[in-house]
């Protein structure tokens, strides 16, 4: 057990605007978001001594140091699994500072995934030796070539078993867009949708995903600064404690083309993470005040509500119908509008929203919020003040 002054706290968050054409390089987006996070915390970027990002991020650690003037980096990691692992950045940050390896740890992710390349479109120029490529090698020649198609194929058995309809998924999209409509930082600010809008939106992948079931491709950068409680008290903001952060990657499971293990109904890795989190944080995900649930596509919300044990297996659709995900409900879902409504910086803008909710500074502030669950499939964290 570590003492309270060693505990990891989030002390800085920063982001660029979220757009469809940033007009500048990904390296610059990263640098701007990182500087904003340092200014938010009141720390000198030179003092950053550890960092992590996604294996998919194009900005090199060296490039980040060169722009920000970081003096010495003692520890770096890169995370596999894309957005499903977005919250595992918090696991690395927590371990890096609580172990004493790092004093000031940086998480960043920056992408021009709309203007520079299309993240949601087929890429047929893949190297034959690319890593973790089952979604390319074993799907591409059969015409399943986009994240939406892989996701829909893996969700099919669940949706079929529990009779979840397109209207049911539409209800989830409407919830996100309702929250986004009152968040000035959201791409879909003042643009709520109805179930009819959802039902009239074009098919992206039959028979599951319409346009309004999908997150957006966005340009933008997000950064987060973590330090220990003893140093956090000297920072500008109220420190937000990382009460627990857990990660579970299981045998024979894939990143997104996750078809080869299990019954495709339950998500065992989320269940494991939920149990470890409850033990570490002393509070279960379902009992926290805000639920930031990774929403690349609407069916993910159903599966994570069950995986992280907000409700029983097969019960998520009714849990949503009962109004639990409304901002005044039992499980207020992504008050920023989530990745569908606010922007898709690979899940990272859901983490910064969780921090704002704990500080009491969010656009759609949940009253008296003291704890928040950050969920992204294979990883989860509970933060609190």
């Amino acid at each position, binding site marked *: 057990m570590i003492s309270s002054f060693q505990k990891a706290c989030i002390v800085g968050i920063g982001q660029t605007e979220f757009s469809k054409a940033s007009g500048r390089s990904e390296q610059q987006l990263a640098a701007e978001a990182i500087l904003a996070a340092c200014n938010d915390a009141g720390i000198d970027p030179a003092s950053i001594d550890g960092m992590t990002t996604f294996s998919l991020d194009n900005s090199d650690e060296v490039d980040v140091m060169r722009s920000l003037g970081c003096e010495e980096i003692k520890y770096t990691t890169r995370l596999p699994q894309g957005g499903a692992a977005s919250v595992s950045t918090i696991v690395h940050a927590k371990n890096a500072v609580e172990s004493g390896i790092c004093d000031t740890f940086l998480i960043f992710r920056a992408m021009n995934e709309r203007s520079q390349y299309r993240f949601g479109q087929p890429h047929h120029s893949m190297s*034959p030796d690319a890593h973790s*490529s089952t979604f390319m090698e074993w799907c591409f020649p059969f*015409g399943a*070539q986009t994240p939406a198609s892989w996701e829909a194929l893996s969700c099919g058995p669940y949706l079929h078993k529990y009779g979840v309809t397109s209207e049911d998924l539409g209800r989830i999209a409407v919830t996100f867009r309702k929250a986004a409509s009152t968040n000035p930082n959201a791409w879909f600010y003042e643009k709520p949708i109805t179930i009819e809008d959802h039902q009239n939106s074009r098919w992206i*992948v039959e028979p599951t995903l319409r346009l309004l079931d999908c997150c957006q491709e966005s340009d933008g950068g997000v950064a987060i600064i973590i330090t220990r409680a003893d140093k956090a008290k000297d920072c500008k903001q109220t420190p937000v404690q990382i009460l627990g952060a857990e990660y579970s990657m299981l045998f024979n499971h894939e990143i997104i083309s996750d*078809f080869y293990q299990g019954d495709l109904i339950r998500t065992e890795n989320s269940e494991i993470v939920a149990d470890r989190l409850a033990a570490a944080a002393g509070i279960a995900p379902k009992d926290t005040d805000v639920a930031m649930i990774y929403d690349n596509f609407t069916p993910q919300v159903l599966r994570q509500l069950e995986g992280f044990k907000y409700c029983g297996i097969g019960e998520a659709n009714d849990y949503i119908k009962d109004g639990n995900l409304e901002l005044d409900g039992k499980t207020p879902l992504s008050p920023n509008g989530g990745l569908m409504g606010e922007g898709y910086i690979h899940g990272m803008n859901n983490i910064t929203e969780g921090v704002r909710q704990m500080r009491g500074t969010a656009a759609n502030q949940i009253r008296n919020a003291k704890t928040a669950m950050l969920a992204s499939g294979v990883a989860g964290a509970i933060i609190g003040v």
Partner: protein
Amino acid sequence: MRPDPIKRIDTAFFWDACEQGKFVVQKCEPCNTLWHPPRPMCPKCHSVEKTHQKLSGKGVIMSWVRQVRPASYGFENSPFVILVELNEGLRIVSNLISDSVPVIGEIVEVDFEKTVGGKSVPIFKRVVD
């Protein structure tokens, strides 16, 4: 036309067999366990001695999709993509060649189709009894 498969050292046996009209999976030589997708080492006994085994080619549709937008790259029309649970217990992503929409639980049987570069991939058709 359908794109060519992506061949790698560890997976070439699968695509080469397809060109001869054979539907096979990786089989561990010492412990006889079948694996798909292929991998360089058997995760059960850690042997790298591999062979392959011909499959029955029969299975059940577990899930299906059709990629509408963007349309499937290379194809004239986006095909029905199916996830098949094979009788041997393994799963594979492929296509259902049919004019009618796939149904979860339907029984299907393997066949082969040519790709743009003259290679071959396994596809499935409904079993008519």
